[in-house]
């Protein structure tokens, strides 16, 4: 399928949104994907290009707190909304409890799935502060990891879910 030529009139739209708490305004083509917008325009490289077809979760970001695959979401869809990428998770230099837990449980090997995995887990814990192991598995099944075998990821998420630090955190976020 060929595309229009360079220089041909293309529709442009202006969007304003918040990314990691900061207001962002940009003029884009409606077809621009959220992943390209974040990586190429904003230089936020935490969301990764991997499957290109929303089955692996490596490009997961939170759109109004819900996980979406940025590779198959239009940037335009994010207009007027709040996008959280992995770069925005730590606050005031302090790692989020999930980030800390992923380090402590060696839930990280090559690291390519890590951003998406942590963001999806963050959404889960907002939803269910104390998920069962089954709920964790179910919620994270769209985030593939080829290195760890997932066991340490399960343990990392469980450790945050079971501790007071996460509940405090969610409370803070709600205000």
């Amino acid at each position, binding site marked *: 399928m*060929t*595309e229009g*030529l*360079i*220089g041909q009139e293309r529709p442009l739209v202006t969007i304003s949104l918040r990314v990691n708490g900061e207001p962002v305004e940009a003029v884009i083509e409606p077809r621009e994907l959220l992943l390209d917008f974040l*990586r190429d325009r904003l*230089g*936020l*490289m*935490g*969301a*990764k*290009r*991997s*499957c*290109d*077809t929303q*089955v*692996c979760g*490596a490009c997961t970001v939170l759109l109004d707190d819900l996980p979406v695959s940025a590779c198959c979401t239009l940037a335009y869809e994010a207009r007027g909304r709040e996008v959280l*990428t*992995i*770069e925005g*998770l*730590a606050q005031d230099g302090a*790692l989020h409890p999930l*980030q800390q837990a*992923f*380090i*402590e449980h*060696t839930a*990280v*090997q*090559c*690291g*390519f*799935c*890590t*951003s998406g995995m*942590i963001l999806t887990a963050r959404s889960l814990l907002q939803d269910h502060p104390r998920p069962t192991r089954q709920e*964790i*598995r*179910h919620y*994270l*099944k*769209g*985030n*593939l*990891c*080829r*290195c*760890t*075998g*997932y*066991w*340490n*990821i*399960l343990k990392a998420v469980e450790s945050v879910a079971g501790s007071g630090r996460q509940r405090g955190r969610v409370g803070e976020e709600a205000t």
Partner: protein
Amino acid sequence: MGHVVPRPDAVAKVTGAARFADDYDFPGLLHGRALRAGVPHAILKRLDVAKAKDLPGVVAVLTAEDIPGERNHGLVIHDWPALVGVGEKVRYVGDAVALVAAERREIATQALELIEAEYEPLPVVSDPVQARQPDAPLVHESGNLLKHIKVRKGDIEEGFAQAEVILDEVYHTPTMEHAFMEPECSIARLTAEGRIEVYVGSQIPYADRDQIARCLALPPEKVRVIGTLIGGGFGGKEDIAGQIHAALLAQATGRPVKVLYDRHESLLVHPKRHATQIRVRLGVKRDGTLVAAQTELYGDSGAYASLGEKVMTRATTHSTGPYIVPHVKADCYAMYTNNPPSGAFRGFGVTQSCFAVESAMDQLAERLGMDPVELRRKNALRVGSVTNTGQLLTESVGLLECIDRVEAEMRRLSGGRDPFKPQVVPGAPNRVRAWGLAVAFKNTGLGGGAPDKASAEVELFTDGTAEVRTSSAEIGQGLVAVLQMIAAEELSLPLEKVRVLLSDTDLTPDGGPTTASRQTYVTGNAVRLASDVVRQAVATTLAEKYDVPPEGVRFVEGLAQVNGHSVPLGEAVAMMKAEGREPKATYEYWAPKTQPLGTGGDMHFAYSFATQAAEVEVDLETGEVRVLRVIAANDVGRVINPLGLQGQIEGGVMMGLGNALTEEFIVEEGRVITDRLARYRMPSIVLTPQIIPIVVEHPTGEGPYGAKGIGEISSIPTTPAITNAVYHATGVRVKRLPVDQDWLAREIARRERPQDV
């Protein structure tokens, strides 16, 4: 050693700060793409790039004639064209015929569509057995046989004459995809000095450098390969992917060029795990003593050699299992076909042959009416045994301990019931559970007479820190932590004072390929010995200053203690510098010499051993198989980094689970059906079983602190442990992977009600 230490790269990876190749940007960056043939076997008759060149935004279009140097690349045999020229042959769908560099990626994509290519199709060679037929079309002019690999021990006729029971079976394993999360990406740029720099996440940076240099007709020192972080490798990032293409385009345009594969291209192009057909014939005495083993393997090496010969050699030498067998004959035919090339993949051929021989051993045990664990124990390699390649094992054979400990744990978890008898799940008559067990061994290091060496440089600084440099690759396995721990141990430094710099052909000496589970052993030793040399140099300096013998200097936690004085290491380094001494050392470590196959003697300098038991639950109506628990014992010589080891075991088991139950890279008549990740069924977190690791330490004398490899052995016995468990649960013997639930349901139904099937 042996302490729990978090990964040094973990903070960057959980915050998004970690930079992989695609995360780099340069001013003026162009985007390069390759046009893939899309036909499996053909002559390229015509190629017209004029329209692509005219497209605004296109900066360069290159074809084979534009390659200044050698046309072909390859890790062993240079048979893989960087670009196929007009009049030349396309040998698989992923062959590249033209390159485009453009201002934007979408323009490059559009330009590819404007290139006109015409092909004259040729008959396709689609599997290795067909490839060996006398009338098969030729993939390469030299013939379809890449290598006939032979293992001979004793007298096979004599062996089978002694046998009282003979088992003869054939097994099949499919092509497999690494499915590393990060698709391949290379960025090349010219420097002001006229050199070429290539940023890439590669498992073998020095081999990249040499292959790039040859194609560009440059001396190797004009090329610098800078390793970025690697989003998973598993053997799939050993061959050239976009490195040469990016360099050619950068050379042609004078601008930086990024060649990023999308997942479709990645699936199509890079080498896979060999599909195999393996026949196993075992001869045994009634008491279970193996007397003869004969195997015949066909390996689908695909269109180009890659590491096919090496992989299939490993498959062959391991094809009779980690057993004492007096009479062995193994023949392997590594064949060229028109499928995507096959190369290195965690397990390196042993994954396939282990499935075959461990299935056969279970079948044999049943034939003999013997406990399958007992049959293995009786024949297991031990110190003093001679392998099928004639190697006398003199140390570090922990197989029996692995078997004993896994068996004990399995029996404990089975609560006194026979673990190999099906147990109906209470309240669910359609679900049954059973255990299965398998053993494995896997060489550490290249072996077979290949020089196996690694160089490392260690430098101390006046701030009391140290830097380790080597070009080995961190592919997620945790090498940085291991090298950091070794240097810290040798230099008596706190961990955080040791930095590790990897994979830059200008700054780091050659650590050799990141393959064959060799990095901890070979590069680990290089780092250990380089650290030792530096420490001795510091000791010598202080010894002279305080007039004591060098052995009178002690190193403790960043301090040198001499004559009652405590000198901070940084201060000692300053003293050395003041005296004009270099506080650094490079050590080129040569692993113990090995012998080529067929010459007897030590084919490998160390082997890791493992035993795994898997508990499965099978739904007899749907054919679904769930793996509930896996007990995994690995003899790794000595544990250096417990967390890293645990990660290698859990990840390895999960990969073995995918190999057993879900994964298959489907190619039909040379055309790739699995051209999207959604079509490759890699396991998600839903399928993760409970993994019970057991560490067995039988140190190997020359390994760093006794350590040997773990990266591959952890994954190898999982598959047959699962398929043996499926047999014990259902009575259906798996001879072809993966265990398709459709097939399994049908086989179960056939046994119950043949009229239904």
